[in-house]
């Protein structure tokens, strides 16, 4: 077999095997790669950071298990940021299949903070520091309805408590008491938040999305409809970096640990594209 034929016809199993090795090795021996935060992520971080004591932020965890690897680190980073700076936070999901992931992220971060808390004041208390609203179908109902009254839409929270009896909810009534909503999703849900909640009630919207859908969201970021934007695992790693650098939050940084794996995977894919094109050119010249 001639050289260009070999370059053109690499067995796909070889590609799979090499990719498998370069992706898994850095995950087995993790090391945190330093990332430099980009402006869209910094803008989101600043908007969350500026939440005043009389306001809360909403975290919409509408991401499916398929994109957990990319988006869950964002949820964890935002929750760490909120809890460390004592911001009040409301968590919800717009679809039922995503409730479990929101629960998982919340449980993990609450446990992280409460395991090192020494006093009741230091602890993260349900109803005082955060509320898990759960799921309310169809999505347009909470999107528009929370502009009038949050406790009318979520009469009970995820655990069955009367929402308006929770301490935090005495002051948080509707979007007027919300500083920013951070929508974490791999679909077009963040655009719906702009269409309904922002256009009608002026709610600030920040976004965390998959790398694939990032390009779709840039027009909305450029116009200022999205206050900030975290794109893919790199965006999550940048937010983790900002939270640690600015507030000294220690904890496992899953997205930052995966940066090495992501880098190698990108380089390998690029290498194979180059090899394929060399083979293609040699073959064309031979013809």
């Amino acid at each position, binding site marked *: 077999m001639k050289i260009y034929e070999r370059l053109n016809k*690499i067995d796909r199993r070889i590609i799979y095997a090499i990719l498998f090795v370069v992706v898994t090795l850095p995950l087995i021996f993790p090391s945190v790669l330093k990332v430099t935060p980009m402006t869209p992520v910094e803008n989101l971080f600043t908007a969350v950071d500026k939440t005043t004591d009389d306001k809360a932020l909403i975290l919409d965890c509408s991401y499916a298990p398929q994109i957990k690897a990319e988006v869950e680190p964002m949820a964890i980073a935002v929750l760490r940021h909120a809890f460390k700076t004592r911001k009040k936070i409301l968590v919800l999901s717009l679809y039922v299949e995503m409730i479990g992931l929101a629960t998982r992220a919340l449980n993990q971060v609450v446990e992280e903070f409460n395991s090192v808390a020494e006093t009741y004041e230091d602890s993260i208390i349900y109803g005082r520091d955060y509320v898990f609203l759960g799921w309310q179908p169809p999505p347009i*109902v909470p999107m528009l*309805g929370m502009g009038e009254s949050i406790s009318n839409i979520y009469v009970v929270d995820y655990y069955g408590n009367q929402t308006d009896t929770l301490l935090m909810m005495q002051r948080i009534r509707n979007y007027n008491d919300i500083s920013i909503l951070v929508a974490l999703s791999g679909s077009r849900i963040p655009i719906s938040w702009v269409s309904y909640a922002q256009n009608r009630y002026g709610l600030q919207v920040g976004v965390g999305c998959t790398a694939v859908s990032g390009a779709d969201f*840039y027009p909305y*970021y450029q116009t200022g409809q999205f206050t900030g934007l975290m794109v893919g695992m790199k965006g999550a790693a940048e937010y983790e970096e900002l939270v640690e650098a600015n507030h000294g939050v220690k904890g496992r940084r899953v997205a930052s640990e995966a940066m090495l794996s992501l880098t190698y995977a990108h380089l390998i894919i690029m290498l194979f*594209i180059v090899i394929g094109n060399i083979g293609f050119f040699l073959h064309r010249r031979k013809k």
Partner: protein
Amino acid sequence: MKKRIPLILIFVAGLLGVISFVIPHPSYQVYDAWIRNDLLRVLSAFAVVLALGSLLRVHSDKIRRKRRNWQYSWLLLIAFAVSAIIGLFGGVAADGILPTTIGSFSYDIQTLYENIVIPLASSMFALLAFFMASAAYRAFRVRSMEATLLLVAAFIVMIGVLPLGYSISKHLPAFVQWILNVPNVAGQRGIVLGIALGVVATSLKIILGIERAWLGGGE
């Protein structure tokens, strides 16, 4: 009559949906809030029941008639029954009337979700990376000027978004941001405007009864 009632319903519902955005007067917004917060939620609850009923019917029928891959339908029905029973009676925080632990073994709805649904869904999606790598190697050929431009832009963005990009040049990530903010946004905005106009036109056709394919039934 079978077609006229749905057409009247869609006309009224469509009109009410549009009007709420152009009449901000409180007297109308009260009705709008009632439609969204009460009526819509009741309708969605019916839709959930209808969807579950339909799912069960389709798979029961498949088993009864022993259609292709009917064995998998048993899996679906068993998984459906188990998760429904545990979800309904085990409670969302494992605090329901149904015990969800045997010794140290826990089988509450969250544990099932974290140990079955998440790994299965994540694994399926992870396979995409391998197919993408193989497909990029086979299909990403510099055959024309446009393909060359696409490849160069893709390489710059791929390197620029990585931490490696900053090590190569401090200006590379900023250049990548420019690509995403300017040429990408220009293209995306054109597509978004086109889609929006298409959605408006199709919605109007449906509301006015010009487009009737959604009614089904063919001729």
